[in-house]
């Protein structure tokens, strides 16, 4: 069958097996020439595509244990952040790190070592995983943690399924006192202002900006920064009494009071209006405050089902890079100007300042301290040459691209971007998957599939 991920590009002609137990998973792996694991298919490109076999965690979806004293949750890999939120937010617990959609699996969050708006405070998802049970290429189950097989543990985070199939894992949730976020919106007229705003927001747990990619000249970098904290019950004064009485309960969807038309406030052409409303509709001071449900703050795009379809049949790709902080200003200026000049990208991009990132031996997670920008491009003929040009700029500034968003970078770009991290990762892979049987379409493209290993 035809299988695609979130960007609908590329397409794999493959079989999707959904084992119901670790034993079945092990058997599948032992019997397969090559395979890769897959969760909810929320990566944009081909990280979780393979031919002829993909192993889905969809049927490995049980929660196993929760310790209310520590917040530690053990669950099978197919459990989604959405299910974790449904079960635990009403009891005062929240995922320690969350991407911009709640429809990702635990296994996917680990394999891509996802980051959220709190990277500068909490790092990546893996900083909060206690252990992972991995079914290796040989079909044995290995528990790894910072103490047990630490290199395998490190390589599995951000390893994009190439070290084995994640069967179950434990993650430490963080306590919250309400289902709301106290949000501040700051508008910035240009790149200098937004970079200052990020620097000044270091004390906030969450921060992210939407940047107007069409603006050029003196308006280059025009953006809106949103920063937030989990609200305490005594900060909910503006809400109706009924909602205040149950602070951990989300308001019913239809009573959401959203300042702008949030569902359309997404990374695509029809978000122009929403952005302008947010940008021009705010107080002169440039800063405004509000209390919003966590769904509005973290998952505005989830309100629209299958919004990825608006790009049509050919699909789209998301280009996400990071460049070191020192290169930030000059780098972003040049890259943004190049994107604006091309006229190919989406109107809006997401900009975020990453904090320091540890890479324990074997780990090749994407983040580094610096600026990361993500924007959507519809697939088209003119696109790939442009992205190659951008790759060269990103690499020259010492940056790299995020595998989970990628569908097209070259092996060379990958190698230059990840350098020594990649070498250490491959040493771990070689040990646990000597025949390099865990392969995705992406890993083959990036030269991580041995000759002869198919």
């Amino acid at each position, binding site marked *: 069958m035809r299988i695609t991920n979130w960007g609908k590009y590329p397409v794999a002609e493959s079989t999707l097996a*959904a084992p*119901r137990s670790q034993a079945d998973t092990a058997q599948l792996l032992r019997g397969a020439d090559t395979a890769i694991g897959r969760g909810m298919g929320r990566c944009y490109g081909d990280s979780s595509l393979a031919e002829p076999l993909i192993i889905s965690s969809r049927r490995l979806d*049980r*929660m*196993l244990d929760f310790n*209310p004293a520590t917040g530690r949750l053990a669950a099978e890999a197919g459990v989604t952040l959405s299910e974790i939120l449904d*079960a635990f937010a009403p*009891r005062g617990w929240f995922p320690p790190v969350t991407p911009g959609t709640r429809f990702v699996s635990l296994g996917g969050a680990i394999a891509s070592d996802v980051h959220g708006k709190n990277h500068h405070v909490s790092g990546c998802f893996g900083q909060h995983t206690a252990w992972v049970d991995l079914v290796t290429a040989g079909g044995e189950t290995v528990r790894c943690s910072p103490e047990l097989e630490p290199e395998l543990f490190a390589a599995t985070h951000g390893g994009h399924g190439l070290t084995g199939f994640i069967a179950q894992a434990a993650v430490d949730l963080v306590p919250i006192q309400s289902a709301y976020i106290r949000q501040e919106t700051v508008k910035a007229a240009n790149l200098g202002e937004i970079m200052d705003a990020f620097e000044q927001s270091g004390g906030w747990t969450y921060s992210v900006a939407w940047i107007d990619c069409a603006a050029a000249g003196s308006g280059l970098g025009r953006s809106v920064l949103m920063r937030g904290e989990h609200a305490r019950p005594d900060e909910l004064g503006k809400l109706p009494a009924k909602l205040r009485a149950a602070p951990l309960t989300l308001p019913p969807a239809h009573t959401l009071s959203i300042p702008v038309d949030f569902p359309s406030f997404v990374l695509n052409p029809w978000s122009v209006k929403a952005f302008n409303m947010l940008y021009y509709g705010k107080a002169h001071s440039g800063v405004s405050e509000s209390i919003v449900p966590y769904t509005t703050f973290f998952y505005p795009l989830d309100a629209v089902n299958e919004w990825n379809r608006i790009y049509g049949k050919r699909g789209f790709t998301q280009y996400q890079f990071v460049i070191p902080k020192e290169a930030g200003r000059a780098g972003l200026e040049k890259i943004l100007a190049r994107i604006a000049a091309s006229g190919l990208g989406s109107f809006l991009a997401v900009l975020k300042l990453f904090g320091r990132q540890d890479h324990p031996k074997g780990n090749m997670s994407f983040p580094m301290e610096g600026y990361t920008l993500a924007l959507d491009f519809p697939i088209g003929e003119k696109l790939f040459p442009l992205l190659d040009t951008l790759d060269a700029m990103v690499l020259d500034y010492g940056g790299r691209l995020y595998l989970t968003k990628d569908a097209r970078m070259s092996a060379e770009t990958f190698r230059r971007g990840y350098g020594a991290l990649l070498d250490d990762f491959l040493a771990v892979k070689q040990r646990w998957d000597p025949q390099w049987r865990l392969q995705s379409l992406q890993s083959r493209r990036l030269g991580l599939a041995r000759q002869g290993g198919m």
Partner: protein
Amino acid sequence: MRAIVILGATSDIARATALAFGQAGWQPILAGRDIEAVGRVAGDLSVRLGRPVPALVFDAAQPETHRAFWENLPGPRPDALFCAVGLLGDHEATRHDPDLAQRIVTANFTGLLGVFALAADEFEQRGKGLLIGISSVAGDRGRAHNYIYGAAKAGFTAFLSGLRQRLSRSGVRVVTVKPGFVNTAMTEGKALPKALTASPQEVAKAIVAVAEKGAEVIYVKPVWRLIMLIIRHMPESIFKKMRF
């Protein structure tokens, strides 16, 4: 807390329904024939709900155990019984394997009568209660490729219909669920038309929605009501020549 006994708890539909009832403030009590598997489902639910969920043995093929099962349920007497037990079987095989045909009839129909009878009597006496059975559109008209399963479901549908009429004045709701196609273990590997196929979560939502009031015969995807209306009313002379 109101309690609901869930038979066939290892089914994908039952798992989703147990969670939905749990989230709506009910206490699920799980039962199934493979106690280890039921235990795993109960473990998952208890983590999700933050309270213990009991797991018991219930095998439709052992009707002699059903009275003891019903009388010895843990905790206060239940307020509802929900049954997701069912067996599709390989229809080709049933044509030559009478034992399999018998097992299909037992799992979908005859093996369920005893426990429903006990619950019906108890709820009738109390003047309150909820009985829910998953039947199937396959029981609405027998078709070439699943008429043993269809016949058993037809029997179960008629049984629930009669029970509903009998209990209509005693405050007991009897709900028949005809889910259409659902993505579950039962249909794994079959190519199901997307527009006609529900997820276990959708089925669960539709069931919890009618727990208190509303329709007592539900099709999860509304188009199924129309499809089955047409299929039921087709003249036999045409129907028998069709292949679907």
